[in-house]
C-alpha cells in the first residue's frame, strides 16, 4: 500500500458510490456541525474503501511519511483539542508527557463509555470504526507505541464485530500491522472486552483490567504516561478524542480551531436524553448554550418546565434553570464545578425530584465503587442511606450536615476520580437544589410526588 494506491481507491470508490456521500442527516444545519460525525450515518461502516474515499488514512500517510512524531504532537497541541471523556484535559499536552525514550509503549483507546446517557463512542465505533483506528495509529506514531488496545465495554457487542472487521480490513491493506504504508512504522490494534464495571473507565482501573486483575483504581502518581500497562508508558484517550485526530492532522490546527470558542476549541457530540420531545445525538460547536441544546432536542416534553441539565451520570454534575444560557464549554463549566462530561446529557423537567435523582446516582455509585478506599466504599453507602432517610421523611437537618461533610470527605480523600466525583455530585446537587432538600427535610414536601411513600 502506498499513497498512489490510496488515491486510486479513493477515486474508484467515489465513482462507484455516486452521490451517496452528499446525504446530510442533520435536522438543524445551522447549529449542528459535522466533524466528528463526518462519516457517521453516511458511509458503509464495513467498507474501508468508503472510509478511504472520505480521505481516510490520508492523515496517517501524511504523518508517517512527511512528519516527525514530535510534529504530530505539536499540531494536536496547537489545535487546542481537549479530552472528550469529560475532564477536558489538553490532548497534545498528555501526548507530550510520554517519555521520548524508545521501548515498548502502549495506546489505550478508552471505549468503556460508562456514562449512561452517553452513546457517542458507541455511535462512532459502529459507524466510523476506521477513524478510531487511524486516530490510534497517529497517536502511536506520535509517542512511539506499537500496540494499541481498545478497551471496549461489554455492552457493545456490535462494536466488537465492526471493530474487528475494520482491523482485519486495515491490516489486509497494510494500514495497520507491520510496515504500515511501506514505512518502518508498526502498529497493532486489539479490542479488549471489559466485563461490566463503571470504574473500569478510570485509567488505572482499565490497566488493571487488561492485566487480568480486579478493576481497582490505583494511586497516582505514578501516572500511566510513565508506568502504565504492563508497567510501560501508556497513553489513554477517549474514542471521540482519538477519532478526530486524523482530521486535525490532515486539515491543520487552525482549521480545527475555527470551530468552537477560545478555550473550548472544536465540536462535541452530545446525546440528548431525558424529558425532551425528540432525544437524539447531535454534534455542535463548543460554546453553544444549554437553551440551544434543549431546542435541538425538540424542546421540553409535554411543554413542561426545564429543571436541570445533567452531565456525566452516574457521576453527575448538574446545573439548574438559572444557568440555561450558560455556554457549554470547559472553562465556564469548571468555574461552576461542573463537568462537560463525555456527552451524555439528561434534561430533567420539573416533575423530577432531585433528592430522588441524587439518591439514585449515589446509590448506583456505591455499587460501582471498586471498594478499595474507605471514603468511597463506605462513604457512598452512608450517603445513599442518608439520602434515603430524607426521602422517607426521617431525616433531620443534622443529617443534611452529615451529607455535606461526607461530600467534602469524598471529594478530598477518595483515591480515584470515582469517589471524588461522587463528592462533586452531592455537592452540586445540594448547592443547586438546596431549597428542595430543605423542603424535603423540614416540610416533608416533594414537589414531584416521588418521596414519602
Amino acid at each position, binding site marked *: 500500500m502506498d499513497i498512489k494506491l490510496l488515491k486510486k481507491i479513493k477515486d474508484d470508490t467515489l465513482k462507484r458510490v455516486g452521490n451517496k456521500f452528499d446525504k446530510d442527516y442533520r435536522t438543524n444545519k445551522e447549529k449542528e456541525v459535522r466533524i466528528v460525525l463526518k462519516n457517521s450515518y453516511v458511509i458503509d461502516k464495513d467498507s474501508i474503501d468508503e472510509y478511504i474515499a472520505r480521505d481516510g488514512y490520508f492523515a496517517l500517510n501524511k504523518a508517517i511519511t512527511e512528519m516527525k512524531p514530535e510534529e504530530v504532537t505539536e499540531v494536536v497541541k496547537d489545535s487546542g483539542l481537549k479530552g472528550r471523556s469529560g475532564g477536558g484535559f489538553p490532548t497534545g499536552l498528555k501526548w507530550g508527557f510520554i517519555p521520548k525514550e524508545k521501548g515498548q509503549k502502549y495506546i489505550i483507546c478508552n471505549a468503556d463509555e460508562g456514562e449512561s446517557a452517553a452513546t457517542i463512542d458507541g455511535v462512532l465505533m459502529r459507524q466510523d470504526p476506521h477513524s478510531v483506528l487511524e486516530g490510534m495509529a497517529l497517536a502511536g506514531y506520535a509517542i512511539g507505541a506499537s500496540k494499541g488496545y481498545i478497551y471496549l465495554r461489554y455492552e457493545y457487542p456490535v462494536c466488537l464485530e465492526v471493530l474487528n472487521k475494520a482491523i482485519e480490513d486495515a491490516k489486509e491493506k497494510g494500514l495497520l500491522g507491520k510496515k504500515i504504508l511501506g514505512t518502518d512504522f508498526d502498529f497493532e490494534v486489539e479490542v479488549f472486552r471489559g466485563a461490566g464495571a463503571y470504574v473500569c473507565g478510570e485509567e488505572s482501573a482499565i490497566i488493571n483490567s487488561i492485566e487480568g486483575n480486579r478493576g481497582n483504581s490505583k*494511586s497516582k502518581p505514578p501516572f500511566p504516561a510513565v508506568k502504565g500497562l504492563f508497567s510501560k508508558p501508556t497513553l489513554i484517550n477517549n474514542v471521540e478524542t482519538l477519532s478526530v485526530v486524523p482530521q486535525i492532522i490532515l486539515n491543520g490546527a487552525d482549521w480545527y480551531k475555527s470551530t468552537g470558542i477560545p478555550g473550548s476549541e472544536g465540536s462535541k457530540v452530545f446525546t440528548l436524553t431525558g424529558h425532551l420531545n425528540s432525544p437524539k445525538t447531535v454534534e455542535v460547536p463548543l460554546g453553544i448554550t444549554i437553551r440551544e441544546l434543549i431546542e435541538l432536542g425538540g424542546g421540553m416534553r409535554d411543554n413542561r418546565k426545564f429543571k436541570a441539565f445533567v452531565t456525566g451520570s452516574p457521576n453527575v454534575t448538574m446545573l439548574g434553570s438559572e444557568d440555561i444560557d450558560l455556554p457549554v464549554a470547559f472553562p465556564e463549566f469548571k468555574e461552576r464545578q461542573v463537568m462537560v462530561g463525555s456527552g451524555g446529557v439528561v434534561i430533567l423537567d420539573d416533575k423530577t425530584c432531585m433528592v430522588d435523582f441524587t439518591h439514585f446516582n449515589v446509590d448506583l455509585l*456505591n455499587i460501582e465503587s471498586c471498594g478499595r478506599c*474507605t*471514603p468511597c466504599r*463506605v462513604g457512598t453507602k*452512608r450517603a445513599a442511606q442518608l439520602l434515603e432517610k430524607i426521602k422517607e421523611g426521617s431525616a433531620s437537618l443534622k443529617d443534611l450536615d452529615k451529607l455535606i*461533610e461526607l461530600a467534602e*470527605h469524598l471529594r478530598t*480523600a477518595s483515591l480515584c476520580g470515582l469517589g471524588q466525583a461522587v463528592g462533586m455530585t452531592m455537592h452540586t446537587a445540594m448547592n443547586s437544589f438546596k431549597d428542595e432538600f430543605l423542603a424535603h427535610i423540614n416540610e416533608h414536601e416533594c414537589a414531584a410526588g416521588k418521596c414519602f411513600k
Partner: protein
Amino acid sequence: MNKIKLTINNQEVEVSKGTTILEAARSLDIKVPTLCYLKGISDIGACRMCVAEIEGMGLKATCNLEANEGMKVQTESEEVVKSRIRTLELLASTHTFECWTCPREESCYFYDYLQFYNVENTYHDDHKFMSNTRIINESTAITLDSGKCVQCGACTQVCAKIQTPATLDFNNRGIDTIIAPTSCGETLDDIACISCGQCSKVCPTAAIIETNHIKRVEAAIKDPNKFVVVQMAPAVRAAIGEPFEYPIGTPVREVEGKMYRALKELGFDLVTDTNYAADLTIMEEGTEFIDRVKNGGPLPLFTSCSPGWLRYIEQYRPEYLPNLSSAKSPHMMQGAFMKNFYAPDELNKDASEVYMVSIMPCTAKKYEIARPEMEQDGIRDVDAVLTTRELARMIKQHGINFRHLEDYKPENELAQYTGAGTIFGASGGVMEAAVRTVYEILEGEPLPNLDIHAVRGVEENIKEATLKLPKTGLEVNVAIVHGGQGIKKMFEILDKGEKEYHFIEFMGCPGGCVNGGGQPIVREEFMQGLDVAELRAQALYQSDKEDVEFRKSHMSPVIQRAYEKYLEKPGSHAAHKYLHTTYTDQSHKLK
C-alpha cells in the same frame, strides 16, 4: 542529585529520591497513622488514614506518594485530622465492636486510632446504617471475621507476596467487598492455604485470628476427669514476654520460669516442654537421615516439623513427598509419647484421661492436630493448641501478673531439654541440632565447634552450608529454607537438579517458628529497622549457649532413658508406630 529536600510540619528534611512522604515523616519521628501500609509489601493506598496536606495538592495519601523537591507537607493540620476522623467514623460504621471479648483488644491498631482521635460512632444510632452482613469463616487454623475487617488488604499481599499461596483476596465490589478465599463459602481448609497465619499477624484488627482453642482448654481444665498436660514450643519462650512489655529478644531465662509458673497458676495438671520432644525428633530424624545416606536415599531428606510446610508440599509439590522425613513434629511426638507411654506407665493415667495442650508460636499446629493420621486407637495425640498470643491472653484474663511471678522449674522428665531442642525455634535451628548429633554418630567423635553460624540468620530465605565429615569421608550439603517464597524458589532449584543436596530444613514461616503466625503481634510502625525474627532467634541461641547443661540431643539423659525404657532405639518399630506418620497427596485442594 539523588537527594531531595522537603519540609514536613515546618521541619526541613533531606531524603533520597524515591522516598515516600510517609517514610520521610518517620525519619523525623513524626507519627503518621497507617492501617493499610506494610513497608516493602503493601502500599495500595486503601485506608486513607495517612493523608496529609501538601501545598498545592490538597489532601494526599502519603504512604505511596514520593517526596519531591521543595514539597511542603502538613501531617497534623485541622483539615488532615478532620479527614482522618471521618475515615475512622466510616470504618466504625461497618465494624462489629466487641472489644472486651476480642482477641485483639490490646493490639488493635484500629481501636488505638479510634481512641487517639476520640472518634464518635456517629452512624451507630440508626438502624438504617447497619448494612453489612457479618460473615465468619472458620477453618481449623484460621478464622476470618468480616465484621472486623477494615479492608486494608495487608493479608492478601502477605499471602501472595511473602507466602505465595495467594489464598485470600478481595471479593465483590463496593460496600459488599469482602476478604475471602473464594466467593462460594470455601474455608481455608478447603483450599490450598498453608495455615501459616502470617496473614493474621499483619491484620490490624481481629478480622483474621487463630481459631480459638481457649474455650476448649478452659473446659478441659475445669473437667475433673481430665488430666491436663501442657507443653510449649521452643519459640514461645522467645516471645512470651512481649505481650507483658518485655522488649523483643528478651533473654529466655528472664521469662521462661515465669511462663512455667503461669501455666501452673492457670490450672494445668502437669507442665512439660516440647523441647524434650525436639530432642526426640533429632534422634529420629537424624537416624532417618543416616539411614537414607547409607541405604541410597531418597535424598535430600526434608525435615517435617513445620505443618505449614507440610501443607505446602502435600498440596503443591506432592511428587516430592518421598523426600519428607516421616518423623512427626515435636509436639505431636510429645503428645503421643505422653499418652501412650509415659502417662500410663509413670503417672498411672490412661491415655484417654490425658488432655494434651500445646502452646505454639504457630497457627498451622491447630491444623496439624486435626490431621487424621495423628491418633492412636481413636485417641488424638494432641487435643488443643494455644498460640503464644492465646496463652498471653489467658494469663491476662486470669488476672495473673506475669511480671511479678516467681520462677518455677518443672521437674517432670518431659520438661527437660538440651540446647539443641531450644534452637529448633529459629530458622536453621533444626539443621544445627541435627548436625550436632549426626556428626557425632557418624564420626564417633565430638563436633569441634557447636555454633554453626552458616545456617543461622534470616536475611536470605535460602541458606546453604557444606558439612565435612573427615572420617566418614562424606561431604553433606545442607540447605535451610524458610517462608513460602523460599520454598517455592527451592523447589525450582530442585526441579532443575543442578545442585546436590542431602538434607534440607524447611519452615513454613519466614524466619522460622520465632516468627510464626501465632506469635505476638509487632506493629509495622514499631518495626523500623528491627528484625523481629532475628532478635527472637538470638534469645534462643543465647539460651543454648548459656542456660543449659547439654547442647546435643543424644547427650540428654532423659532422652537416653526414653529409648532404654520404651522405644528401644531410634527408628524402632515402637518409634515408628508412635513417633512417625504418613503423608498424602493433597494436590486436589482448590488453588
